[in-house]
């Protein structure tokens, strides 16, 4: 263990020196030249960075190319800690995040709250769906929720987040809207898989009964008819080809559950730089290319930027905290 301890000291020293250097040289102004994906290559955050980075370059909003850095760890906590401690005034850096990261902040899993960072913008959103197998006995959301309330332990629900994570909370919000007493909520079984796709295939194999996840990842299963969508968690019906899927709202349950994709930057970036970055992202959002990329990946383009987005994130964090407390995920 002594080596690791020494390593810690070395690391601290390196970090200290690094910070010193960053302070002594005036921070580079725009344009954006690095995007941190707080996950391994291949996931949603990695995709967000790579596709946005490529578009920034294609649209000539940046000089040269945007470098994508993968910094996995703690569902984004490592990147969050790194930016907060070493690169908080780095105005050419953006970090990918989403509702999942925001939920982590709300539940106190990151080293810091929303104030630690400056929230730039969201560019699009995925939407939650509640699915059963095409041969399932449940034809409507009502039937499912009735059974859930009457025999809560007879159902196994699955999704890609952990117990108390975003996929789980969305499903429980529905159960609550259907009138499930708070003390029964914890008797509905929740099974976590590595993603929406694995959860759906496990449901097709008959190992779980219901899946709550994002639409984008499993759109193919809906188109092929292998699964039946009981509810889409959006305010309005979705655009084509999913216009026929019923929303939860239209069935009398006032529940929405989006999973937006967006970016933050360090908390000490100046107002001028912050505004310029938001403006760059807005130009990107307004382009037809972004609309294409978003649609191909099952995202609905949706813009919230600058102060507007900042308020939205804070408000969302409060909402998630409230729901988490009611359900019992956090104290």
């Amino acid at each position: 263990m002594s080596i690791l301890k020494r390593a810690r000291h070395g690391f601290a020293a390196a970090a200290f020196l690094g910070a010193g250097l960053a302070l002594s040289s005036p921070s580079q102004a725009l344009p954006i030249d690095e995007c941190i994906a707080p996950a391994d290559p291949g996931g949603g955050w990695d995709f967000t960075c790579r596709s946005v980075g490529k578009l920034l370059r294609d649209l000539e909003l940046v000089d040269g190319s945007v470098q994508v850095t993968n910094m996995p760890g703690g569902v984004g906590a490592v990147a969050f800690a790194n930016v907060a401690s070493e690169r908080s005034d780095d105005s050419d850096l953006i970090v990918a995040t989403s509702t999942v990261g925001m939920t982590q902040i709300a539940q106190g899993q990151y080293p810091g709250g929303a104030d630690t960072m400056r929230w730039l913008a969201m560019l699009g959103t995925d939407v939650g769906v509640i699915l059963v197998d095409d041969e399932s006995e449940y034809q409507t959301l009502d039937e499912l929720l009735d059974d859930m309330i009457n025999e809560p332990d007879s159902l196994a629900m699955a999704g890609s987040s952990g117990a108390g994570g975003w996929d789980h909370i969305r499903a429980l919000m529905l159960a609550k809207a259907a009138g499930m007493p708070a003390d029964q909520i914890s008797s509905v079984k929740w099974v976590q898989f590595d993603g929406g796709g694995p959860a759906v295939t496990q449901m097709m194999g008959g190992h779980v009964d219901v899946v709550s996840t994002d639409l984008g990842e499993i759109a193919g299963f809906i188109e092929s008819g292998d699964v039946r969508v009981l509810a889409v968690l959006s305010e309005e019906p979705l655009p084509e080809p999913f216009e026929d899927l019923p929303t939860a709202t239209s069935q009398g349950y006032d529940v929405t559950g989006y999973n937006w994709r967006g970016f933050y930057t360090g908390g000490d970036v100046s107002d001028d730089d912050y505004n310029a970055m938001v403006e760059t992202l807005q130009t990107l959002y307004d382009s037809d290319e972004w609309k294409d990329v978003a649609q191909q990946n099952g995202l609905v383009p949706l813009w919230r930027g600058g102060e507007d987005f900042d308020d939205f994130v804070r408000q969302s964090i409060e909402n998630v905290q409230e729901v988490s407390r009611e359900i019992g995920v956090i104290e």
Partner: protein
Amino acid sequence: MSETDVQPERISGVVGDRIAGAVLLVLAVAAWSYSFNFTAGFMQPVGPGVFPRLVCVPLGVISLYLILRPGFNQRWPHRAALIRQGCALALLTSYGAFLEPWGFLPASLVTVILLIRLFGARWKPALVCGAVLTVGLYGLFEFALGMPLPNMPGLDW
């Protein structure tokens, strides 16, 4: 890829295996008891502490067996070898610490040259090969593979 001509000598592991067994037994017991700190997850019948405990049981039992019935070890290094290994580890540890503040090229150059010396080469080939290796690696990763390495401070290209 140790020496091809010398077969590694096997020696009795009475001391080595018993120490290892004791260390692993302590590890198993410590991990077992520490796992009770992992608060049972929200709505999970099997909490985060169960699997570590399931692993600690066989680990502890076999460690005990190792203490009672030690097997064989390979010959442990002599003092000169230990010093060389210690130097290499110290060198590589400081490389990790200096890589970011100094930048890749200077930090690697110093490390590689010293490392080659440590592996028994003379100064002249160490200097030449160290420089070639450093520049080669920089070219390979920075340009051919497109993986950015830390630059020297104040130098940006």
